[in-house]
């Protein structure tokens, strides 16, 4: 909006200059009678002064109409480019920090997983160990109980055998002697014998 207005102003300025020049040309054309000429190599003071003024006017005009707008635009573009670069750099550093974060969390996860696995392994090992131990203990107790049972059975069998043998011996003796002897007297005698035999 502002630029458009400015361009319009410049255009009007230019047209005014043009009109001034055309008017001057017409004036000169209308009023000229003869065309005297100046020397080929000469210094005309007024021309000299006017040309100095012309030069400064031209400097001002070129500054106003070429250098100022173009430098402004160049400056604006430079700022824009700087901004874009700065933003890109910010984004880059942010991405870098995020990446670092991810990497560190990933490493942490890795170690955690390893830890969990090793713990699980340890636990499993411990469990297996206890199970084996329990089994061994059980087996040992079963074995011990079995041995005790066997011993008891043996004792029982021996006692039974003793009784059997005793009564058998008494039967045999009774039959041999053919006479009822006092069982109680002889019982002691037989037991002694058996004990001597068993020893």
């Amino acid at each position, binding site marked *: 909006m502002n630029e458009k207005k400015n361009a319009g102003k410049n255009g009007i300025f230019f047209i005014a200059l043009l009109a001034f020049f055309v008017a001057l040309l017409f004036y000169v054309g209308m009023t000229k009678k003869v065309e005297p000429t100046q020397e080929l190599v000469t210094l005309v003071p007024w021309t000299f002064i006017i040309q100095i003024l012309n030069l400064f006017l*031209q400097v001002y005009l070129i500054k106003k*109409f070429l250098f100022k707008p173009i430098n402004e635009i160049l400056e604006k573009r430079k700022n824009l480019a700087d901004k874009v670069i700065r933003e890109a750099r910010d984004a880059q550093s942010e991405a870098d920090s995020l990446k670092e974060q991810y990497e560190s969390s990933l490493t942490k996860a890795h170690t955690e997983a390893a830890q969990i696995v090793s713990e699980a392994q340890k636990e499993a090992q411990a469990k297996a160990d206890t199970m084996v131990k329990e089994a061994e203990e059980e087996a040992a107790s079963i074995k011990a109980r079995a041995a005790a049972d066997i011993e008891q059975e043996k004792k029982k069998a021996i006692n039974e055998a003793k009784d059997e043998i005793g009564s058998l011996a008494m039967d045999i003796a009774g039959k041999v002697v053919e006479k009822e002897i006092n069982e109680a007297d002889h019982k002691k005698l037989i037991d002694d014998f058996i004990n001597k035999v068993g020893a």
Partner: protein
Amino acid sequence: MNSSFEVDYAKIYQTIKTGIPVLGDFKITQTLIVSWIVMIIITGLCIFLTRNLKIENISKRQAFAEMLVETANNFVRNNTGGNKFDHLIPFVAALFTTSVVSNLISLIGLRSPTADLSTEAAWAIVVFVMITATKIKTNGFGGYLKGFTTPIAVMTPFNVLSELATPVSMACRHFGNILSGVVIDGLIYWALGLASAALLKLIPGAVGAFLSNIPILGLGLPAVTGVYFDWFSGCMQAFIFCMLTVMYIANAAEEG
């Protein structure tokens, strides 16, 4: 057809009596008129080039304008070695464009303002004042005066002479080159006109008499010679003038 050769003098359109003793009468000469045309052309070009400036997606016109500005910036910065003389850029650019357009405007039939010594003298004096001002600013007024006595006091007159020779040589170099171009162009046109008149008079009767007034041979050759005498010389002299300006001012700032 006029058979005697005359150089294209600057015409005086209007004389305004001022009565000022030294300056004399104010004369509106061809030099001034064409100078104003040159200024209008340059200013119009600047306005045209800087219309609808954009930051992105620029037009070819804007790219060209930016290139011109960058070239001017680089020219001054490279020759002075730094950003110290950035304020000179518009001045040098104005000097160069005015000089180039003034030199080349003879191509469209107008008389170059640079074929008038007053123009170059004016520019050279401005440059001389800038050089002197830079010297005084750098070394102080005493240092500036003392600079004339180096390396020994005997050299003072020569130093003063060489100092004064700077603007004179700058002005005369530029003026001489452009004037020689004007004279040589005039000579070529004159010779070709004579040649074509002589050639076409061979045609008998009224046709030959009519055709001999048309300098038909002047169509091709001046374009070829003009490449050197107008284009090359015109651009070269503008470049040299600006180069010397920048160099002298940069040197003036380095002394001491």
